[in-house]
């Protein structure tokens, strides 16, 4: 069941130290990122963090940034050639322990990640959404259709959701 949530851009005035996605190492890294770096990245224009609020308390956050594949890596792909392939990077996402399993992540994915990816595509170009997931999140992203980009080097592998799949999901 989904909580009613207010979703908006992170404000510099939002308190961030009481947010906690958990106590394991991966969760602590996300807590630290949100508390210490999300705000300053936003103020420097390096990324955009949005928060989901329930009753005034931050229930979750997501950080996105436009990105591109290193053009030197795609010169050999005939259809793309030397054009950098723009995409939306889902950099960080977490739900506070008190609000987990209540649809917070889904709402952030839909109302921030997917809608911003479609906006980016409509206005600037975007081939899809890219994420480098933590172990705990692979199954979660798979539910939305993110596909692991199999590679021997990264465990877990990065994942990708094509923009065309998003558009197909949105169409009636």
């Amino acid at each position: 069941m989904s909580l009613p949530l207010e979703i908006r851009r992170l404000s510099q005035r939002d308190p961030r130290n009481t947010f906690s996605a958990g106590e394991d190492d991966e969760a602590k890294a996300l807590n630290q990122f949100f508390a210490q770096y999300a705000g300053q990245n936003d103020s420097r224009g390096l990324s955009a963090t949005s928060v989901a609020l329930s009753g005034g308390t931050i229930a979750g956050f997501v950080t996105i940034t436009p990105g591109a594949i290193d053009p030197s890596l795609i010169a050999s792909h005939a259809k793309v050639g030397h054009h950098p392939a723009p995409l939306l990077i889902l950099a960080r996402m977490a739900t506070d322990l008190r609000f987990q399993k209540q649809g917070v992540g889904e709402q952030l994915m839909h109302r921030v990640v997917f809608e911003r990816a479609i906006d980016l595509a409509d206005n600037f170009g975007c081939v899809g959404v890219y994420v480098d997931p933590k172990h705990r999140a692979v199954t979660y992203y798979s539910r939305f259709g993110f596909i692991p980009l199999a590679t021997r080097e990264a465990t877990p592998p990065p994942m990708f959701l094509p923009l065309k799949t998003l558009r197909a999901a949105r169409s009636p």
Partner: protein
Amino acid sequence: MLDVVTPMTRQELRTALTRLREYQRSAPADELGIIFDTIGFICFRLERYAEGLDAHRNAARYDKGRADFLNNAAACLIELGRYEEALTAIQEARKRPPMSPEIDVCLQLNLAEVRHLQGDRESARIAFEEAVQKLESPVALNLAHVASTASVLGFDDDAVEYAARSVAVAIGADLGETPALEFLREHPEALTGVASRSASLAAAIERVGARYDAPPPPDHRITAQISVPPEALSMLFVLVEEPPEPTPTLRKLFHESSS
């Protein structure tokens, strides 16, 4: 003394204390509560916590209706490491009608500090959040107290945020979307004043400043340029050209929201 941004030197505080004690000897009885409480406040700033506790307890004896005097006694007890007595003082204060919503916030902040110092970080976090949620109209002194408590709890960024809010209220400025640390740096005298209130707050401001000025560590950097091995890249372009059908979860996400 209640001005959060104007630091008083220790000599100025000692002089004020001497004058107050002289005045107290001949003051009318109905003023003794507030005089003793002020004496206690100065002793607290001078880190003479045992004297401060005596003064606040005297104040509470002279004016039994004041929750804030007991709250101030609790603050001294916390500094003296007498946590159970501090909890008792907080509980007693709650039985008295609060002078203002600000006192309710102060009680909650003191409770958060006690819980933290007793090792119960989760209770401390909850108490701190409740205190913040109770903040109504911004009062510089209250905001400075929030900042100080946040720093004790290890919430460095929130400490800096509330220190900035406290200064903003004190000087009549609008924070807007200015990062808290930048705002404080734009007002160095006020920063000195608010940091002088507590060593832990000064340390928190310094730590946040050091982090703000340094590049983020590798774990917290966000990369906008993706480098993936050739096999992953090939797979990505196959997906771009031949996208999979949306999963049921994805379809539901879009269509539930539009219905």
